[in-house]
């Protein structure tokens, strides 16, 4: 806990603080437990996914970047509304990452470490990100503490190898930082905390000018009132927008990998994806994998679709319902056919039909009836024909195709 109280009667405060401390930590522990419910069956898991969507930082960036908000963003906006009144309310009462960081902080303090006086990086991060979001590339969104924690749940979800290490590295660094410089994450770096500070500052200004009807004076330490805030805004805007523009040019609009259904255009998706791993864990067929540098640095740890074992089921939109940032736009089941993630393509030279083999695997497995076999009287042979208007790139054909080692029909990014 970070509260540094000075002049009040120590004895009186001792009891109240102790009790409040216990209750707050109980709340945060409860939220952590709820978050862990993701590992249970889908029916009980949805609330758990809502936790990682509760961040005002992500909610605001998502609204700015995606130009609207999905279902999950609502829970973030709810928290935003509360933080306008109670600064850092989220940190104290809800943040499960904060709970862990506090524990690390305690360890650090007991080792005699202390927090250096450093500039509040967090507000820079928020400003850069939100201004970047204006151009669709909120660059530090992935630093959201809930996303960092959520990402590390990959260990329970069958993710292995480099992806597993990468998914946990964020939270581990966070905890190490908190041990080395106790409180530095929560106070100085955490963009979620900084978002709350900025929001509170805004509402305080409003209050001070007497517009608001809120009478209660903020009870914690005064927020950053130093002159230079406006300069910080301008600088944040320029760098954020510039960076975002550069990122979009570099990443481009074309997708080089297959994204989950409902994904925004590539540059926007890569920017808005918080790398929380919710979609990877929600996928019932385990076809979503965190990208470990196969498709460039910008795409690191974003979800990509791999059809090596199963395909994107026609009766499932789970990943789109658990995305906290709206990088995957929420889809209704009926829209699945229109949410193209790729397009099937045939390699005629290895297709078994050219050998007159008795294979109809792709046609018979296609849930969208997008595949037909055409007979040619000249070649005296069948060829696979794919109707692009019917093919959403679900990969059922690729999974079913019996050719090895290369599949004769594969889904390519559309």
């Amino acid at each position, binding site marked *: 806990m970070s509260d540094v109280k000075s002049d009040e009667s120590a004895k009186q405060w001792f009891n109240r603080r102790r009790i409040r401390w216990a209750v707050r930590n109980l709340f945060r522990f409860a939220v952590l437990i709820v978050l862990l419910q993701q590992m249970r069956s889908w029916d009980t898991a949805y609330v758990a996914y809502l936790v990682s969507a509760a961040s005002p930082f992500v909610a605001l960036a998502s609204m700015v970047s995606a130009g609207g908000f999905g279902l999950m963003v609502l829970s973030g906006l709810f928290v935003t509304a509360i933080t306008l009144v109670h600064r850092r309310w989220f940190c104290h009462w809800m943040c499960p990452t904060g709970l862990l960081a506090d524990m690390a902080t305690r360890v650090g303090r007991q080792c005699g470490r202390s927090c250096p006086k450093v500039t509040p990086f967090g507000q820079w991060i928020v400003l850069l990100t939100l201004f970047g979001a204006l151009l669709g590339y909120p660059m530090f969104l992935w630093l959201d503490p809930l996303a960092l924690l959520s990402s590390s749940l990959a260990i329970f979800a069958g993710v292995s190898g480099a992806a597993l290490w990468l998914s946990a590295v964020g939270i581990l660094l966070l905890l190490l930082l908190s041990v080395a410089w106790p409180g530095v994450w929560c106070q100085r770096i955490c963009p979620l905390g900084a978002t709350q500070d900025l929001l509170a500052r805004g509402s305080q200004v409003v209050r001070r000018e007497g517009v608001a009807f809120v009478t209660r004076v903020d009870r914690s330490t005064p927020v950053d009132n130093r002159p230079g805030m406006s300069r910080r805004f301008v600088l944040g805007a320029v760098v954020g927008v510039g960076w975002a523009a550069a990122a979009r040019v570099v990443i481009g609009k074309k997708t080089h990998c297959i994204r989950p259904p409902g994904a925004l255009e590539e540059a926007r998706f890569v920017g808005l994806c918080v790398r929380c791993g919710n979609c990877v864990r929600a996928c019932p067929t385990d076809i979503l994998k965190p990208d470990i540098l196969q498709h460039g640095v910008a795409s690191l740890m974003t979800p990509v679709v791999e059809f090596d074992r199963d395909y994107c089921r026609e009766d499932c939109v789970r990943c789109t319902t658990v995305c906290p940032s709206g990088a995957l736009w929420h889809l209704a089941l009926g829209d699945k056919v229109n949410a193209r993630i790729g397009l099937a393509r045939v390699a005629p030279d290895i297709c078994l*039909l*050219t*050998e*007159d*083999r*008795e*294979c*109809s*695997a792709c046609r*018979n*497995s296609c849930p969208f009836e997008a595949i037909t*076999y055409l*007979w040619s*009287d000249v070649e*005296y*042979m*069948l060829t696979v024909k794919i109707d692009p208007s019917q093919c959403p790139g679900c990969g059922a054909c690729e999974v*079913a195709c*019996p050719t090895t080692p290369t599949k004769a029909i594969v889904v390519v990014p559309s």
Partner: protein
Amino acid sequence: MGDSFSRRDWLRMIGATGVAAGLGASGATDATAQESGFQSSVIAEHEVQANRASPSMIGDKVIQPRRELPVLHHTDVLVVGGGPAGICAALAARRAGADVTIVERYGHFGGLWTGGLVLLVIGHIIEGGKQVCQGIGEEMMRRLDKMDGAIIDRRPGVNPTVDAEAVKYLMVEMIEQANLKVFLHCWGVDAIVNGDAVQGAVFESKSGRQAILAKVVIDATGDGDLFAAAGAEYQHRAHNIGLVSRVGNMDRIDMDRIDAAKASGTRKPRYLGIHTPVAGVNWANMRGPEADGLDVEVLTRLELAHRKFIWKNMQKVRKTPGYEQVYLVETAPQLGVRITRVLDGLSSVTRKDLKAGTRFTDVVGVGGACSREHGAWQIPYGALVPRKIDNVLAAGRCISVDMRMADLVRLIPNCFVTGHAAGVAAAVAVQDGCRPRDVDVPKVQKILKDQGAYLG
């Protein structure tokens, strides 16, 4: 059965104009033949056939008068069609204690397996290499194992390839050992139906149009000719129709000349199929265009076109450097019709059930995969039973199946499985004196297992 003919039945069969003709003549045949020492001597004085109720023109229509059909045979279980499904059905019913008769349109058994030269036995294994096709089908393969040059690639998880002549021989042997009544060269053309109950079938052969009366008929025609004639509901589908051929001297291909030709950019010839138990001989499949296998004009057109293509293609192959010695051994006697009619049964084999891994209480068989791509799928007894018509069961590719599963159901091992199930069910129905739809399924399942079938 003749005793139970009522006067009304009799009149109905004779009809208004028909007079029984030819009955007397056929009775005299055997005696006369034995007396004559000459092969081409006169067998019998035939009656002048003026009264045999031939079709005649009435106005501009050809009318077939009503007439009595000679009854060739009485039996418990009549199996129409001697392909993989029919043979398994007949053997299973016989082993389950029924009196069985099997009728085949060609002069040999095996259907598309032999006459169609579909030599690769795909569909008996599933994901993980487990073999799900057991029972009589597996028994046949084991007997082929013991024969010289009859089957190759009999390894776990691999699809074996057979020799058609070995299979033809084996089936004769098994049918004789089982003491089945057999009629070859008989084309089942109609069902004998009373109300919704089938009582037998009508055949055309060199002996004319004759009837076989039976308690249960198993339709193993592949095209569902019998249940369709009996009035059962079915779907009529188009599928690829091809013609298989065998190619010889594949072991005399000159690789050096091929390599030389490749350097000069000569195009490789069309795929020449896969190996068979006969050294140097490959069998080459053909998918063919999607067409209606019940339309005689379509069948004729495709038969002609396919034969022309196979011959001309072989000329091209022989002009390709390195392939000069390759030659066409034979084209299949029987056109490769894949799917025509499929029954509209009490239940169905569906893709959905395959994906869900549905287990049926009335399971009578487990089907395999084209290669090893998916798990086992159960075949419910209801898929063999017509919705409305009684005393007829479907076996083989014409059982009740959805479009996407038809490509699995029609595979040879899966035809073994459905044939086996239909045979046992028919025998149980006869023994218990019930309609096949009311058959005691657990009893059928038990007998199937006793006969070595795998039910999951």
